[in-house]
């Protein structure tokens, strides 16, 4: 990531998936702190809290309890303070409708979680590489 001090917001309810992301990030030497929240509502609460640090990127799962990823995007992308934070969808769903909905709501990327951990590490490596090169507004 370009700015290593800003946290990565991981909105994900599956514990092993969280471990997978953490491990992969560690494996590719990403030092940003990771904030893990279990659903969209928790994430919005965190983002709206003035004391919490704004993340440099949001890794978003779609299928979550209480408030799913699409519902989260519908709120976040209407909020002027949040809409410029890049959101990368990280999901198992390869349903066309989910992809369409996500891009309609202005996501920066859509990654399918591979079953194979090694492949997952490569996905994370690519995401990191991209967001290390890409400029972001302050």
């Amino acid at each position: 990531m370009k700015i290593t001090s800003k946290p990565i917001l991981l909105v994900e309810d599956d514990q092993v998936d969280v471990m997978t992301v953490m491990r992969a990030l560690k494996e590719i030497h990403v030092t940003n702190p990771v904030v893990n929240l279990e659903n969209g509502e928790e994430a919005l609460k965190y983002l709206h809290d003035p004391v919490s640090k704004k993340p440099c990127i949001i890794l978003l799962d779609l299928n979550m309890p209480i408030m799913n990823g699409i519902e989260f995007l519908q709120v976040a992308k209407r909020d002027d303070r949040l809409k410029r934070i890049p959101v990368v969808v990280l999901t198992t769903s390869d349903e066309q409708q989910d992809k369409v909905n996500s891009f309609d709501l202005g996501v920066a990327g859509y990654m399918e979680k591979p079953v194979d951990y090694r492949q997952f590490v490569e996905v994370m490596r690519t995401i990191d590489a991209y967001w290390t090169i890409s400029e972001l507004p302050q």
Partner: protein
Amino acid sequence: MKWSIEHKALTGFTVALVIIAAICWLAYQSTVGFMHASTRAARSQETITALEEIFSLMNQAETRQRIYIISGEQRHLAPRRAYIDHIHTLLAKVHDAIADDNSGQQALLRRMNEHIDARLALLEGVLKVRREQGFEQARLKLMAGDGEREMDGIHETVMQLEKGETARMQQWIEASRENADRMLVIFFVALVSVAILFAVLFLFIVREMAERKQAEKKRALLLHELESANEELRNFGYVVSHDLKAPLRAIGSLADWLSTDYADKFDDEGKEHMRLLIGRVRRLDSLIDGILQYSRVGRVKETVIAVDLNRLVREVIDLLAPPPSIVVTIENQMPTVMTEPTRIQQVFQNLLSNAIKYMDKPEGAIRIACVAEGRQWKFSITDNGPGIDQQHFEKIFQLFQTLAPRDRVESTGVGLALVKKIVEMYGGRIWLESTVGRGCTFFFTLPRTVASAGSTKGNNT
């Protein structure tokens, strides 16, 4: 056979129309009868009047004559001629009126005529005597009583004729009354029957409508059930892709970490078990993918576009990247077809990947061809691989059926089932010919109605 509502209504209205027509005809007949009877009754009345007039005229003629005989004044003879003419006119009228009678009236009339003629002749005779021989002779002739007798004869026949005519008039009046009564009955029956018919028809239609409404309700309910079932299936796809894959991915990741983090703690057997474990995770993953792909065919609709199969097949070959030992040839120009690109790609990809995957010869040859056959394109993919025993021809198209153990050749058993489903969805057919050890040919057809370009033989690639 169940009649449709239109049929029933039409029949009902036709019957109503026929009844109305029949009633109209009957009413017409009765009216005509009534009019005829009324006319005849009136004519009888006139005849009676005429008869009475004749008798009175005869009396008057006689009276005038007597006055002349007594007085000898010529002026009393003057109206006599007119009376006699009038009598003859009336007689002719009566004759016409009873022309169709056969109850003896005509005979009576003839007799009356004879009496009148005789009486008139007698009168003429007396007149002659008065003129030529004087009053006394005439008086004697008049007193002879011949005239009296004839006059009685006239009176009697007139009475009889009147009696007969009155009876006839009564008959006609009776007939006209009967006709009038019948008309009333016909109108009443008509009114009631048409009313009943329309009521029955109305009830029929109302019941049919109710039934139809019921059926519609049922259909709507069924449709709703179908929609929810479809929705469930769609959700099932999502559940399979996410909820089954999430734990599977966790197992895969955890197994990977175990074998990485504790590599030095596992002995060879443990390492082998871990390798198998990760392999099975991958297999289950591709099985789930296969189910998803299979369930999506026909459920998820894609835009139908013109697909140039020359390009598509080459792209598929590039994607599969066959080893250098296998040569894939497109034997002739492929057509351009109107279809969903992903589906047709799945067909070629699965058939070609099977041919490549199971190739057992050092020099593999796979040939792709297409010919126009009637209203269809017939595609063929021929390989020189191991071939398939005829007894398996049916089985290989079933879901999850494989011929080789999965450990030897990694396969989900979805591919050919998927191909068959796609081909049949487009109205085509799939089959194969094979000689064990020499290879096999898969054929499939697609209707040409979806095709838009020709195919020519012998354009090698």
